[in-house]
């Protein structure tokens, strides 16, 4: 599995091809459409992260030392960004996730999507992803 950093670099390269915001947005929208949906059983109240405008559902599982995330949103743009976040964080070790940053969102020109004042639930989702990773990490450490 490639490292978080590698994946993020790939994404940055991928977006470098687009000059216009419109192409970027279209790509995000495509990504949103291809996001492997969260299992229906997890798409309920306790997995919801409320933004004022769009909602996000997030589920995390611990498998073979790695965290597996699945997620969904009711807005397609939000879903596209989620696809990118899942791509970089899913299937990685908890400690790597906890320490990773999300600067690549900024670097591909979508900084405003992760702004603390943008009410789309994404920033809370990133926080929640890290909290899951932290939880699994400490579980793991205890086991040793």
């Amino acid at each position, binding site marked *: 599995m490639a490292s978080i950093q590698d994946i993020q670099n790939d994404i940055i390269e991928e977006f470098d091809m687009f000059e216009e915001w419109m192409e970027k947005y279209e790509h995000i*929208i495509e990504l949103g459409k291809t996001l492997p949906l969260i299992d229906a059983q997890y798409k309920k109240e306790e997995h919801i992260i409320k933004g004022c*405008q*769009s909602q996000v559902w997030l589920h995390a599982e611990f498998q073979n030392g790695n965290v597996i995330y699945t997620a969904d949103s009711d*807005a*397609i*743009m*939000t879903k596209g960004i989620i696809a990118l976040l899942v791509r970089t964080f899913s299937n990685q070790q908890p400690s790597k996730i906890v320490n990773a940053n999300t600067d690549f969102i900024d670097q591909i020109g979508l900084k405003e999507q992760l702004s603390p004042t943008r009410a789309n639930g994404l920033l809370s989702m990133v926080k929640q992803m890290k909290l899951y990773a932290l939880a699994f990490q400490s579980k793991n450490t205890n086991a040793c």
Partner: protein
Amino acid sequence: MLNIAKIRAQFPALHQEVHGHPLVYLDNGATTQKPQAVIDAIQQYYAEQNSNIHRGVHYLSQLATDAYEASRTCIQKHLNAQHSHEIIFTRGITEAINLVAHGFRSVLKIGDEIIVSTIEHHSNIVPWQMACDATGAKLQIIPMDENGALKMDAFHALLSEKTKLVAVNHISNALGTINPIKEMIDAAHQVGAAILIDGAQAAPHLSIDVQELDADFYCISGHKMYAPTGIGALYGKEKWLNKIPPYQGGGEMIATVSFEETTYADLPHKFEAGTPNIAGGVAFKTAIDWLNEIGLENIAQYESKLLQYASERLSEIDGFRLIGNAPQKAGVISFMINDLHPYDIGMILDKLGIAVRTGHHCAQPVMDAFCIPGTVRASLAIYNTKDDVDRLVEGVKKAKSMLS
């Protein structure tokens, strides 16, 4: 005929580019831009008059007090209130409603009822929920029909001698519905209930006469009517303002203070504790004078034509779904495009330099009733043009094609 180009020219904020496009500002229901005259009034206040008001004997203090009080009188005249002390300055409508809802805690008892409608802004729901929680009174809800108009039969059926207060907006910010408030005021009075009108969306578009309406309370927010942020006003009938207890405690609102006993000042000071937003208050008058120079009749007429144009043009778009289609409507077009998420549409419109609001517009019960996550809302002001509408229509088409 209004010269809209000339009016537009007075708004510096409208003359900027957003993401490389000339700004189209259609978020006036949230807040309006300010004409240069209002901005100048603030600047002039700070350059020539700034001082703390009341109680001061020196010249600047007198100047500032006179300017602030002139604004109160101006609002009194504008709403045709009987007395200037029936005008209480607040931060905005939210505070005005909280002031009344807090005061009514001393009136309400278990078993009493407060009536609000399904199409209220959260500001006209939550304070009443809190007052009901504190007193054991019960909240009753006027339902709406599928067009977003209030069901008046249901309203009349809800009224009884248990009803202590009715709180309803003049125009709904989420749907644009103009409510039949005269009928509602009279009906409320029939059962001896007080009635509060939330005029947030009405004051920028209609002329209001609180004596003719016979409203007990009427609230306005400056920032939605070309005045600064952080200033608004509560009109209350003298008898009600005398009846309910003060809201905040502090300087200005007292006559005498000792640790044994504090006596409260007369109206309006009883409800105005602490140093207010003086600059905002002073410039509120400038905004109202400015509005009156154009004339609310003229504004209503122009905006209603533009609203019609916008409705027609947007309806051309396949999948366009108007949310809120009451027979009496003003200022606002709320819509969906098929099932596209309003947030997605808003994001793309933004990149095209078009500012609209998306979401539940602080009126979640309305969205729940329509079973939608929110709407895209274009809301008009006097400086908007057909060109703005055309840009919006193009933008929505573009968004639709990108998202579908």
